[in-house]
C-alpha cells in the first residue's frame, strides 16, 4: 500500500555496461505496473534495484516517499516472487511460507493462522507438509506467491513469475494473479517479456529497450498510439506490418499514401491529425496491424494484389503470410467467419488475392527517428 517513485535511476555494471539509463517513473498506490521488453532491456535490473538486490548506480528510488537506496532488501518492506520460484528446498511448504514471519519473531499461533489462511486462498492446504521438490510447477508457483502474500508488504514485486510454466497453466495463473491483485489491493510491479501478459495484467505498461523507457501508458494507449516503431512492433501479435511508402498531399489537402503503387486515402480523421502536426510529405514508414487488413475484391479501389505464401489456421481466424508484387511480406489476420466456405481450411499456396486497409488504422513513423508522426 504505497507509491513507488524512481528518479533518474541508472545502473552501470562493473564492466561499464549501462543496463538502465535515467529511469523516471511514478507508480501510484495500488497500481499494477508491468515492465515489458525483450531480454536484456533492463526490466529485471530495474525491478531488482527496487528490491535492493542490485546496487543503484545513480538516481533515487523512493517507496512511500522514503528514499530506500541504502536500505537492505529486508528493510524495504517488499515482497517478491522469482522466476524460478526460489523455494527453500530443505523446508516444507509451511516453513517456506512461514520463513519471513519467523524472522519477524511472530508468535507461532499467529504464523499458523496466517499461513493456513494464505494456503486456503491459493488452494495448497493439502501440500503444507511437502517439500518443494514434490510439487508440480503450478503448485510451486502458488507457494512462491503465498510466501510473498503473508508478508503484508507495501509493494509486491514479480519477476517473470509465469515464464517457467506451460502455456495452459500460464493462462490459468494469469487469471489467478488478477484475482490475487483484487484481494491484496496493494502496489504491484510485474516484469515480463510477454506482451500478452503485459496487456492483460497491467494498469499501465512500461515498455523498455536497451535500458531506455520507450513508452509508458495504459494497454489501450500503447496499442492504439505507439510512440515509436519499436513499441508498435512489440505490442500486438502477430506483429505490425511495416511498409516504406510516400506520404503525399492531394488537391483538397488530405494526405494519401501509395503502398505498392496503389493509392490509398488517409481517411478516418488521420489526415486531420497529421495536418495538425504539420507532418511533412515525403517518405514514411507505414504500419498496419494484421487484424486491420481486410480482403478485397479484384478491381475494388485500393485493392493491393498479392500471393499467398504460408497460411496458419488458428481456428477462429486465419493468419495469411502474403507477398506483394514488389516482394514485401505482409501478415493478414482474417476471421474465418468472413471467408468463403471453401477457403476456411486456408488458401492454396501461390493463390492470388487482394487486400486493402482503411486510413484510420494506419500508423506513420518517421523513417529516420522511427518516432510516431502523431506524437
Amino acid at each position: 500500500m504505497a507509491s513507488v517513485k524512481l528518479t533518474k535511476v541508472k545502473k552501470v555494471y562493473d564492466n561499464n555496461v549501462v543496463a538502465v539509463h535515467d529511469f523516471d517513473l511514478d507508480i501510484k498506490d495500488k497500481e499494477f505496473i508491468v515492465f515489458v521488453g525483450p531480454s536484456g532491456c533492463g526490466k529485471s535490473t530495474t525491478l531488482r534495484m527496487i528490491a535492493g538486490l542490485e546496487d543503484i548506480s545513480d538516481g533515487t528510488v523512493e517507496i512511500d516517499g522514503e528514499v530506500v537506496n541504502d536500505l537492505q532488501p529486508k528493510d524495504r518492506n517488499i515482497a517478491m516472487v522469482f522466476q524460478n520460484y526460489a523455494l527453500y528446498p530443505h523446508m516444507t511448504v509451511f516453513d517456506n511460507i512461514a520463513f519471513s514471519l519467523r524472522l519477524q519473531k511472530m508468535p507461532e499461533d499467529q504464523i499458523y493462522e496466517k499461513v493456513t489462511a494464505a494456503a486456503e486462498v491459493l488452494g495448497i492446504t493439502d501440500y503444507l507438509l511437502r517439500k518443494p521438490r514434490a510439487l508440480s510447477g503450478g503448485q510451486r508457483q502458488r507457494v512462491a506467491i503465498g510466501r510473498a502474500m503473508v508478508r503484508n508488504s507495501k509493494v509486491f514485486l514479480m519477476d517473470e513469475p509465469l515464464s517457467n510454466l506451460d502455456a495452459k497453466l500460464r493462462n490459468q495463473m494469469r487469471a489467478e494473479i488478477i484475482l490475487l491483485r483484487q484481494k491484496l489491493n496493494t502496489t504491484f510491479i510485474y516484469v515480463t517479456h510477454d506482451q500478452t501478459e503485459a496487456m492483460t495484467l497491467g494498469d499501465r505498461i512500461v515498455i523498455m529497450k536497451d535500458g531506455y523507457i520507450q513508452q509508458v501508458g495504459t494497454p489501450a494507449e500503447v496499442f492504439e498510439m505507439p510512440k515509436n516503431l519499436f513499441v508498435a512492433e512489440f505490442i500486438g501479435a502477430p506483429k505490425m506490418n511495416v511498409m516504406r511508402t510516400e506520404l503525399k498531399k492531394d488537391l483538397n489537402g488530405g494526405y494519401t499514401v501509395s503502398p505498392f503503387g496503389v493509392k490509398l486515402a488517409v481517411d478516418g480523421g488521420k489526415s486531420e491529425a497529421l495536418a495538425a502536426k504539420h507532418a511533412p510529405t515525403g517518405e514514411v514508414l507505414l504500419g498496419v496491424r494484421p487484424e486491420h487488413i481486410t480482403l478485397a475484391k479484384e478491381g475494388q479501389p485500393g485493392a493491393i494484389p498479392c500471393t499467398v505464401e504460408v497460411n496458419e489456421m488458428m481456428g477462429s481466424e486465419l493468419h495469411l503470410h502474403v507477398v506483394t508484387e514488389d516482394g514485401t511480406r505482409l501478415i493478414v489476420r482474417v476471421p474465418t467467419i468472413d471467408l468463403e466456405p471453401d477457403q476456411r481450411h486456408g488458401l492454396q499456396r501461390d493463390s492470388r488475392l487482394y487486400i486493402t486497409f482503411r486510413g484510420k488504422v494506419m500508423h506513420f513513423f518517421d523513417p529516420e527517428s522511427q518516432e510516431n508522426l502523431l506524437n
Partner: protein
Amino acid sequence: MSNKRHMGLRASAHISNTLIYIVLVVMSVVWLIPFICIVLQSFRVESTWQVGYVIPQKWGWDNYVALWNSDFKRWYLNTFITALATAVGQTVFVLCMSYTLSRFRFKMRQGLMRFMLVLGMFPNMLAMIVLYRVLKDLGLTQANAVPGLILVYIASSGMGYYVSKGFFDTIPKSLDEAARVDGATRAQVLWKIILPLAKPIVIYTILTAFMAPWGDFVLARYISFGTSAGMNVAVGMYSWLQQDMIGQRYTMFCAGGVVVAIPVTILFMCLQKYYVEGVTGGAVKG
C-alpha cells in the same frame, strides 16, 4: 540376416564383458594385496624383520602388545587431537572463504582469487622453514608440536576454497535473494538457507580435513623435529622403517598401519557418498 547380426552382437558383448570381468578381478587383487599382506604380517610372531613370505608361521597379538607399550600411543593421540581440531577449524575457514567468494561481489574479489592462485604455485615446502623457526620462537615445536601443527594446518586453509566454492555456486542465488527479501540478514541467509543445503560439502570438508593429518609427513617432521612426544603417526612410524630400526620394528609398523587405517577407513566408507560428490564437483570446477 538381421537375426544373425543380432547373435553376433550378443556374442561379442559376451566376450568383452568376460574380458572386463577378468581385468576387474585382477585389478581388485592387485589393489587389495598390499592391505592383505599388511594385516597378515601384523600378526606374525616368529620374526620382526622383513621376510619373503606372506602367511605367518606363528600367529599372535605380540606386535599389537608391543605397539601399546611403545611411543605409538602418544603419536596416535597426537594425530587424533590434531585431526579433530583441524577438522573443525579448517571447515570453518574454508566455508567462510568459499561462501564469500561464491556469493559476494566485492571490489577485490577477482584480484583476491588470482592472488591466491599465484600463491598456490609456490611450493609450500618453502614456507615450512620459516614456520618452523617462528613456531620455535613461540614455543610450539618439538614436544609442543601438536598446537603448532594445528595452527599451521588451520591458518592457511582458506586457500583450499575451490571445491566448496564450486558447490556453493550450484546453489541458485535467487534463494539468497528470496531470503533477503523475506527479511533475513546475510548471516541468517548463510545459517538458515545455505548451510542446510550445503550439507554434502560440509561433510566433505570435515572428512578431508580430518583425514589429512593422518598422512602428513613433511610439516609434522619439521615441527616435531626429532622429539618423539611431538610426533604424529606418520613421522613416528617412518622412523621405524629406516635402516637402523627396520629389523626390530617391521611387523610393528604393519600392526600400527592397521590400527591407523581402521578408524579412518571406517569413517571414510560411511561418508563415501559425500566424498565422491565433493571430489567430482571439485574436478569439474577446477
